[in-house]
């Protein structure tokens, strides 16, 4: 068990999230089962009121969750001082078997919650509230993911053994390691870059063709291809070290916290890209989403591409 104030703060907020999450869950189930906008019965009226509470709770959780995610990474970075051998958050994530799953779950949940909010905003724009049942249905599913995230987080922190040696990110994200993550290093760098830029080219193509489903799907693929290429290729140029592949270290002050910018750009870009395909929307909104997605994806690609280019100009060689 690791009892730092930061971990305690996260656990306390998780307890509050769980409490409100359960309320929202119970209400969601009720609304999902009994919602009938045409009914004038008292129970429907109460449900309408309760839908406001549910939406407020979900908004609250999301609004706190996003900065808390950054705080979570911050905390992992701090704990890494205590764990011998861990130099950054990656070491802590790897310190227990739950770390990686927790991380993926956290990112997934942020996408789901953000998606829910977009759906909700769209829903309350229409008098007949066409998405009410769907959105509360989605929350019922999201709730289980959310709760398992909270439980997993609790388990992870309680199972971190301060006296245990952990792997430093240097061994985790290197081509010689044998962990699951390291299998991505088997991919040829050239191929990877073709996939990455090709993927981006498809995004541009579908942007001009206004093919919203293809645009969304290419964004979905872009999440994966960009993270993999970030670890395998672009990361090394951020660190200016051919052997350093860690996707967490550039969140630290040594690299001017550039990681937060990178991940924010990627999240916003791909998220709005997904929204175009998965939320029915008015025409101007779709165009707005297209533009936001395109802009942020573009900035992301530019930012990452600049690292190797600047490195080449400065040093005259590729890594």
């Amino acid at each position, binding site marked *: 068990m*690791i*009892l*730092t*104030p*930061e*971990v*305690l*703060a*996260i656990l*306390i*907020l998780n307890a*509050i999230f769980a409490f*409100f999450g359960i309320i929202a869950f119970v209400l969601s189930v009720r609304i999902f089962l009994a919602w009938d906008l045409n009914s004038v019965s008292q129970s429907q009226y109460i449900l309408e*009121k309760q839908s*406001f*509470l549910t939406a*407020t*709770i979900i908004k*609250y959780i999301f609004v*706190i969750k996003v900065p*808390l995610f950054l*705080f979570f990474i*911050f905390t992992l970075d*701090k704990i890494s*001082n*205590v764990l*011998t051998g861990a130099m950054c958050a990656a070491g802590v994530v790897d310190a227990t078997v739950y770390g990686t799953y927790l991380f993926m779950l956290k990112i997934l949940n942020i996408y789901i919650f953000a998606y829910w909010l977009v759906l909700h*905003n769209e829903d*309350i724009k229409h008098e007949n509230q066409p998405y009410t049942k769907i959105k509360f249905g989605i929350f019922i599913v999201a709730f289980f993911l959310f709760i398992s995230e909270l439980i997993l987080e609790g388990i992870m922190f309680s199972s971190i053994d*301060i006296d245990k040696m952990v792997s430093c990110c240097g061994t985790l994200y290197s081509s010689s390691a044998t962990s699951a993550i390291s299998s991505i290093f088997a991919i040829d760098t050239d191929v990877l870059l073709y996939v990455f830029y090709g993927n981006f080219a498809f995004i541009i193509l579908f942007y001009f063709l206004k093919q919203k489903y293809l645009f969304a799907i290419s964004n979905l693929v872009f999440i994966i291809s960009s993270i993999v290429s970030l670890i395998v290729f672009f990361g090394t140029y951020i660190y200016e070290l051919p052997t350093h592949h860690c996707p967490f270290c550039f969140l630290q002050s040594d690299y001017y916290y550039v990681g937060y910018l990178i991940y924010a750009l990627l999240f916003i870009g791909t998220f709005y890209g997904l929204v175009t395909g998965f939320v029915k929307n008015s025409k101007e909104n779709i165009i707005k989403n297209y533009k936001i997605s395109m802009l942020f994806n573009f900035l992301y690609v530019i930012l990452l591409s600049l690292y190797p280019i600047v490195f080449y100009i400065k040093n005259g060689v590729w890594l």
Partner: protein
Amino acid sequence: MKNKINVYLIEYAINAILRQKSKSFFIVFVFTLLTFLLTSVFFITNSIRYELDSTVDTLPQIIVQKIKAGRHYDIDVDAVDNILEIAGVSDAVARVWGYYYFANAGVNFSVVGIEQYENQYKNSFDKIASKFDLSEIDSKVSMVVGHGVKETMHDSYYKEYFNFIKPDGTLKRVNIAGVFEADTQLESNDVIVMSKDTIREIFDIDESKATDIVVKVANPEEIPMVVSKIKLIYPDTRIISSEDLKVSYQNIFDYKSGIFLALFIISLFTFFIIIYDKSSGLSSEEKREIGILKAIGWRVDDVLKEKFYESFIISFFAYTLGVGFSFAYVYIFQAPILQNIFVGYSQLKTSFELPFIFDLQTLFLVFFLSVPIYIAATIIPSWKVATLEADEVIR
């Protein structure tokens, strides 16, 4: 999706807060007090940790102690020669030090022995000790004491010298040759430095024994290797590296402020239950007000937003106030009263300055522990208000 900040709504929210003067004042007062306390504790621990961290690197990289039957035991001085032979070790010194319990004042002095006639020590003495006479420490049996030690000895009318009681009951008179500068009180307050020979006499330690052995390693990368080699040669030793010390500090402070936090949370939640209670019990005045707003076209979402602004403004204001106060309290007034938790009630009081550390993470930490929890406490009451039957105003 309007992202513009609604100034009029904020204005209205501020007005609503001011309208309920006594309630708002109570909330701000208690909230400020709580954040103030929490932040102060974090600030003090941060400062102390910073003080430790800034000097820990000058410590010897490795300390070797002998453990016998689970207890710390005197180590053979011969071990030094064997350790010196390990590749990578640049220096190894057998130290003699210990605690001397001064029953009159009820305090422990840390008595540290140094090699006499060593030039490097003289240089450092010049830097850190005042009222110091070089010839005296060379010729007579004398010591350099910390500020607190000097004061305590003065109180017992020892001004020029001090009588140590040896294990056999006889007295050993040692002259006070100098005092460490008050600047370094946090480190030097209870320390007495004297020659190893004198210490051996006072504590009756044999020439062939030492308290521990400190080892210097030129290349820090080699420390784990050196440690394991020493462990192989002397399986009965405990070996502490300065890296271990750092980790240990971090653990200690986290653990302790964690416990404080755990206790603190109870009072925090008590407070929020009061808030919940207060904001649930609506006066007819408030009910009417919400009714009016809804009748003239405010949506439920607008009322919720207004209520959110209210609780955010009040909690953020109190948070800033609490943090501001604790800045002043810790760094300007040096945390009177609360400091006692950290310095204990020992007789050897240190007066020290807490170094100023601006730690963004602490501010975030206190923020997450106060503002979101407060807002959470107001969610359900706000919702109840916002969904009140509006037609009551004209019924």
